């Protein structure tokens, strides 16, 4: 099986370790991974801030880059939801505005083939135990778009429960948003920071060393709050935990 890795612009720029972890896991499971170099950004920040028309060319670009792969895998619930849930909506809106079917048609080949990383492992590959070893106490934050838009459910937890050496502890108020919300963090920084601080205090109460999630954008916000509040908890993307082995343990 040959899949394309849609890493997302944030991961590409700031969290290349997540990308390397995804490649390691997928390759280890016998999947042929390609990273189309022309990929950039799904356009979510534009769309969600109200610049739908600026997001459209990015969606078209996404489609040009990723059409033709058996599957497109992304380690971001949020960007995955952008493609799966909001791209079709953009196509419909363009049609409703009398601009014809071209956007919808362009997006059609990529939308149903796009999977969030944990979803791809569990649903497409049928794997919940990737042979990981991670000797730490970990708590899991289900991110909003992964949980509500994509409906990831307990897939990430099933993967985490199979990790050897790891203690998984429940996060109080797990379903609550961390307060990132893209440009929300800038436009309503007081509320965003208060939400982040509550999330971090809840994580602290678990006694975990690591807070993991399937989205680095949320982890950037939570992690930035954690270091500012000097908690000592580390934010880690779930892919990096799953890529950790006894031979090559992640720190």
């Amino acid at each position, binding site marked *: 099986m040959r899949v394309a890795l849609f890493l997302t612009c944030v991961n*590409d720029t700031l969290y290349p370790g997540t990308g390397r972890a995804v490649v390691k896991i997928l390759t280890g499971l016998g999947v042929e991974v390609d990273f189309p170099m022309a990929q950039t950004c799904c356009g979510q920040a534009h769309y969600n801030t109200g610049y739908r028309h600026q997001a459209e060319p990015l969606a078209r670009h996404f489609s040009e880059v990723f059409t033709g792969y058996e599957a497109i895998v992304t380690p971001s619930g949020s960007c995955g939801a952008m493609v799966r849930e909001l791209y079709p909506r953009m196509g419909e809106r363009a049609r409703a505005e009398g601009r014809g079917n071209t956007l919808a048609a362009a997006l059609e080949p990529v939308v149903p083939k796009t999977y969030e990383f944990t979803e791809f492992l569990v649903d497409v590959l049928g794997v919940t135990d990737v042979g990981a070893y991670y000797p730490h106490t970990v708590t899991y934050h289900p991110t*909003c778009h992964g949980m509500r838009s994509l409906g990831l459910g307990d897939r990430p937890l099933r993967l985490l429960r199979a990790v050897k050496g790891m203690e998984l502890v429940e996060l109080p108020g797990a379903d609550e948003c961390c307060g990132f919300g893209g440009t929300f963090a800038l436009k309503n920084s007081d509320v965003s920071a208060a939400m982040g601080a509550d999330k971090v205090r809840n994580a602290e109460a678990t006694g975990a060393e690591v807070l993991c999630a399937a989205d680095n954008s949320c982890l950037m916000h939570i992690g930035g709050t954690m270091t500012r509040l000097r908690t000592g908890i580390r934010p880690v993307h779930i892919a990096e935990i799953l890529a950790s082995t006894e031979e090559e343990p992640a720190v």
Partner: protein
Amino acid sequence: MSGTFVGMPAFPKAAHDAVNNPTLRGNLRHATQTIRGKREKAVAELSDWTALREAGKQIKDHALRHLDRYLVQLEESVTAAGGTVHWASDADEANRIVAGLVKETGESEVLKVKSMATQEIGLNEALAAEGIAAYETDLAELIVQLGEDRPSHILVPAIHRNRGEIRDIFAREMSEWGRPAPEGLADTSAELAEAARLHLREKFLRAKVGVSGANFMVAETGTLVVVESEGNGRMCLTLPETLISVVGIEKVVPSWRDLEVFLQTLPRSSTAERMNPYTSTWTGTTDEDGPKTFHLVLLDNGRTDTLADEVGRQALRCIRCSACLNVCPVYERAGGHAYGSVYPGPIGAILSPQLRGTQSEIDASLPYASSLCGACYEVCPVAIDIPEVLVHLRERVVEGGPVTREGTKVVLRPAKGHAAERTAMRAARWALGRPGVLRTGQRLASRTRRLHPRTLPGPGKAWSGTRDLPALPDEPFRDWWQRVHGGEGDEK
């Protein structure tokens, strides 16, 4: 739409004070978290919740699609049952009609059933200007009125107050409005409720005019429905001689049968009760029973304009349960007053800018008062996709576009103050459309990473004031990929 809190600052500024008020945050957190847990249990008891939610959505959408037909039918039914129907296109007209009707009775005071529509139009203030006193009888509304405060929640308008604060308000203010609070009033629920009961009882028995809203209006029979928990509403609906109901036109449902759905979903969503304690229905007038005169004021006030918007119209499905407020992490921290509208929380953030337009500072900021986490959509018993409408309204704010105002299509210009953001978004879109440019930027950022400050100047301060920035990696992923997997890359 009046009811705009005059001089209201934009949401982020209004929220700032609430976030930094520990008493308020404590009150809100306690209240919303309690009701949130109870609601979840009450909803989980029904095995057909998903079907009920879908049915509620369908009934509302159907009624809205044929609103003209059902409103005419409603008018005919109400008239046939002995009531009188008045049509009000905006707040001023509605207030004028109600004030005129009260004056015709010769009375100078009215008793009120808790009603969002009358708050929306600022009826109490308008009546006061005409020398008519309006007394709120819902316990929480009474607290707000006595405290000269503003409601901060749709269902629990005094949610921002704790019992100690309420005791102080009662002790200080009740005597100004009627029966004073008993000496040595304690701040227990029982004593506070008893003080309110005695205070209100005198008013109920004296009142000649009642003013209400309605949760539903049944077109086929001309029946109005109010659901409530305290019984004060029923007193106001049955004791006075004249009853005036002010109701938004979107509250019409075709038939009695439709109530079956909403009388299950509304109480469970709002108060986490299986059934609300009081469901009052009234149809016109009846000799020897209840009010002798009944007036229905049908309120538009921006609703038909909202209906013209194909994305935003779903906000009119709202049955005012306030489940979205109780589950919203932004509401929980910012409080209801920050929304600058009688409709706070997620539903307020999409309803107010549609009813009032997006021109004012507060209305232009409301669509951004959300992290788009989607919890509001998940709990909404009529499946209003609030995040979808928020994004739609954000577009209206930053890009302008066609809207309907007073029945006429107009093209809005983008709101002021977004020029820098618009430029940044365009620049980002330009760069992101060109992988080579993105890559150059990433490399530059990585190679200069030791020079980057941990706090940011300008708009970035909003981030770095409370959060550290992530450290930049040695190389972006794409450079690693190319190093390891080779290939010149097919970027253009």
